[in-house]
């Protein structure tokens, strides 16, 4: 993707190697590794190929965590016959990050068929991560057959309703939402009235300056409704977050990296650790995409997030597994 280099800096007003229009290219080459920094609601982008030029002080925040997604333990088809090996590679990648993440977020589809042994395998592999704390939200594969009861027994202690919750880390307010249960025929992801009420109350007392990170499995923005890549009532949820200066929404589900900025909200979807899915509308269905074995790890990945106080900056770095 080196041909994209010439496109990345279009208007470098601050002589800092970044610009707003360049962000539009971020999506295009994010798959090969990119860093996107949000400052004052504007996402700015860096290419991994210029990593040696980054200002380390700017990148190192007060809070660092890593996101993994869609491990699909139990999947064994041609698109990736060994999803345990690639999850282990993701953990190795996280352990090798220059800024060690304090904790991990797993944005769902932990398992492929919600079988106990699949969850067990993931738990075992994640024990190899230097960061010991892992926060989960369920994907639709994790709630098959029991609307998430097993998932909540394992990962949902202290959560509300179908498994939603919030917590604070160094002044950043994290909100884990569940949009994969009680799905309606013909519909998209769904949060539901009870969860929306909880969310409204959860953020009501927070100061507008509190940085917010929302994480959920299915994208909370309309990526491609034709394939179910969106959430029916996400606009309602986002309306409760309007007062905040910095809102970052982290999702999975679509097995590819995408970003969008809307006002003060940055939306980001992470790569899977298991298998890639096609770009919206670029295939007959969103099913697993087969790539040559030697290319597989280049389309899988992890996401590393750094928060820098004062700058209202959230640096999101996507790294491929190989």
């Amino acid at each position, binding site marked *: 993707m080196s041909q994209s280099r010439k496109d990345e800096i279009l208007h470098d007003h601050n002589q800092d190697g970044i610009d707003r229009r360049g962000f539009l290219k971020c999506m295009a080459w994010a798959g090969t590794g990119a860093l996107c920094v949000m400052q004052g609601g504007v996402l700015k982008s860096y290419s991994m190929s210029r990593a040696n030029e980054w200002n380390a002080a700017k990148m190192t925040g007060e809070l660092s965590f890593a996101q993994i997604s869609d491990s699909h333990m139990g999947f064994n*088809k041609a698109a990736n016959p060994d999803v345990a090996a690639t999850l282990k590679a993701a953990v190795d990648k996280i352990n090798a990050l220059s800024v060690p993440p304090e904790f991990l977020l797993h944005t769902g589809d932990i398992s492929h068929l919600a079988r106990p042994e699949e969850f067990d395998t993931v738990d075992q592999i994640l024990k190899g991560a230097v960061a010991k704390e892992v926060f989960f939200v369920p994907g639709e*594969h994790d709630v*098959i*057959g029991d609307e998430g009861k097993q998932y909540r027994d394992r990962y949902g202690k202290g959560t509300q309703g179908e498994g939603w919750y919030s917590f604070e880390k160094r002044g950043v307010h994290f909100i884990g939402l569940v949009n994969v249960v009680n799905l309606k025929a013909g519909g*998209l992801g769904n949060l539901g009235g009870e969860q929306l009420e909880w969310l409204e109350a959860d953020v009501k007392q927070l100061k507008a300056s509190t940085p917010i990170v929302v994480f959920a499995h299915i994208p909370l923005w309309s990526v491609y409704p034709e*394939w*179910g890549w969106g959430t029916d009532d996400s606009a309602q949820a986002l309306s409760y977050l309007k007062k905040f200066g910095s809102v970052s929404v982290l999702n999975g589900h679509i097995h590819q990296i995408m970003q969008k900025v809307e006002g003060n909200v940055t939306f980001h979807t992470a790569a899977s650790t298991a298998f890639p899915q096609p770009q919206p509308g670029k295939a*007959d269905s969103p*099913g697993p995409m087969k790539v040559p074995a030697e290319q597989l790890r280049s389309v899988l990945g992890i996401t590393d997030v750094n928060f820098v106080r004062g700058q209202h900056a959230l640096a999101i770095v996507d790294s491929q597994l190989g």
Partner: protein
Amino acid sequence: MKREFARIGLASVVVALLAMFAAVGHVGGAAAQEKAGTSAEVKIDNFSFGPTALTVPVGTTVTWTNRDDIPHTVVSTDGVFKSKALDTDDKFSFVFSKPGTYPYFCSIHPKMTGQVIVQ
């Protein structure tokens, strides 16, 4: 060239005749299905049910087969039937003993919808 045309003409006639036989055969099959205990199939391919709408006589056993690399479910919108997760090549069957329209969907990928019309 003329001989070539003739050959294509003959081929077309043969295809047309075959199609007629197939049509006759299909009518015969439909007649047979009116007896109780017949069966029909729905294939799941590329995140869709095929056929999307299936019309069967009362007493038909409908069998869904998942041919995707991703699990799906077959769940009646009105709670009449509900499969477990169907992994690749797994099947789910249900006997339709009462006439009516039975809409259903995949509870994992709710964009996937279909219906069985029982007459």
